[in-house]
């Protein structure tokens, strides 16, 4: 691992060294390091690029890291990762992709992930995306995430785009059974002429299934962000979608939250607010001694939870 690898790993997975337990570090389409444990097995796929991650029933307080690094300009990486989480688990999965591109050719990573969550299991899934390097080549990330939740399971999905990603289209599909809870928090920062589109389709199939999708976006420069969500209530269920965007410079944020109550027992809410930083917030922080610029930075940092 060189300095760039270490920097990317720290940014996307908070890793300062090779982690303990199960992990799979992928670099430029190859395995850089891998470790399987009895409880969390990592098995390479035979017919295509990617891994199967099998978490045994009853595994609690364990984590698995599967970061991806891309440091070759002009490289396009496509990977399929499938997670099979047993029943009654409580685990944290830390994914994320860091692209360093110093060339004039585009680099791209498309991670196609599926999660099969067993009954009454609780999964925290953290995915961070980051780009660095001064080349003109774009840093592109187009992940697709499919989550299938069995009865009583809970998924807490944190998706962060820290900085430096030229273009991203992220699609997430979730199906919830009875008594499932889904909580998605998405925080995206775009600058310059970057583009980010996120799409969520959440199907509340089970009785008493609940979902909360909260998207916070900050768009600077000439960047454009689009948020599209579709929450469908097909049973006695509850769904809440919130999309807030802060605009700076000449940036644009487009929000299209759709809610569809196919069952009369479904209760669905969406809220969306886009605008510049509230002047009264800046003034308040100035009265506490911050300069106008410090106040703005503080507001953005808190809003994005970085």
């Amino acid at each position, binding site marked *: 691992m060189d300095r760039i690898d270490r920097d990317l790993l720290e940014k996307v997975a908070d890793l300062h060294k090779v982690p303990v337990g199960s992990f799979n570090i992928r670099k430029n389409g190859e395995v850089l390091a891998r470790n399987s444990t009895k409880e969390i097995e990592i098995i390479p796929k035979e017919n295509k690029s990617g891994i199967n991650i099998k978490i045994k029933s009853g595994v609690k307080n364990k984590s698995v890291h599967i970061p991806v690094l891309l440091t070759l300009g002009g490289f396009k990486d496509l990977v399929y990762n499938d997670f099979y989480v047993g029943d009654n688990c409580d685990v944290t999965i830390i994914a994320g992709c860091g692209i360093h591109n110093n060339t004039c050719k585009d680099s791209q990573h498309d991670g196609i992930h599926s999660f099969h969550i067993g009954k009454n299991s609780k999964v925290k899934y953290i995915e961070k995306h980051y780009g660095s390097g001064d080349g003109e080549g774009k840093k592109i990330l187009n992940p697709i995430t499919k989550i299938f939740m069995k009865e009583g399971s809970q998924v807490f999905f944190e998706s962060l785009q820290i900085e430096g990603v030229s273009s991203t289209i992220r699609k997430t599909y979730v199906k919830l059974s009875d008594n499932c809870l889904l909580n998605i928090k998405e925080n995206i920062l775009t600058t310059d002429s970057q583009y980010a589109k996120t799409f969520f389709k959440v199907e509340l199939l089970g009785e008493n299934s609940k979902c909360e999708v909260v998207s*916070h976006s900050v768009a600077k420069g000439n960047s454009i962000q689009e948020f599209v969500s579709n929450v469908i209530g097909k049973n006695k269920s509850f769904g809440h979608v919130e999309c807030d965007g802060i605009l700076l410079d000449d940036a644009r944020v487009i929000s299209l939250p759709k809610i569809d109550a196919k069952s009369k027992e479904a209760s669905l809410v969406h809220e969306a607010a886009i605008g510049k930083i509230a002047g009264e917030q800046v003034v308040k922080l100035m*009265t*506490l*001694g911050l*300069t106008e610029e410090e106040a703005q930075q503080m507001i953005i940092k*808190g*809003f994005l939870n970085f």
Partner: protein
Amino acid sequence: MLEIKNLSYSVDENGVKKEILKNINLSFSDDKLYVITGNNGSGKSTLLKIIMGIEKQNEGDVLYNKKSLTNMSITERAKEGVSIAFQKPVTFKGLKVKDLLDITAGKSHNLSAMCEILSKVGLCAKDYIDRELDERLSGGEIKRIELAMALSRNAKISLFDEPEAGIDLWSFDNLTQIFSNNKNKINIVVSHQKQILSIADEIILLKNGEVVCKGEKGKVLPLLDGNGCGRLRGEQNG
């Protein structure tokens, strides 16, 4: 000593000049609690905002220990020791109570320091420091945190705009205790509330942007309407 000299403030409303404050002259000594009262629209809140630098007067000067604050920004005044607790506190999505308390002190607090600050307003730090200062807190909680932030700044000039508004179940006695304890500083409170007027050292009555009367509580309080509505006895509403 804080001095306000020949201060006037007006706004342009559809091409018509509307005077909000007219030739105000006041002085505030250290270690005293001043309560400014008056009907809605009398200019009380605007006066506080001008002292903080949020609004800028058209004429006149604001001096602290003979030094003019007039050309100072809000930040510079804050650093000079002026603080304000707003009537309607501002909320922040994503900023936690502890983040804001750290800003007020310019350093990171430990739990016991946060306990000390928040217990002054009757809140238990453990229940609040990791919560975001947003609408998921009740109006009363937000208001108390606003007061706690102002108090934790150890300001030389503390401005409180209607601190009793929306204080919910927390008793008035605790609130008045806060001002009584905030000694050796200039405390200026805007309020209609009789109980707050009763703990003032001096009372200033504003009407239509002018100082109608001012002086020690013992002199001014008997002149005011018994309901503490911010007007002189016998005066009609409005």
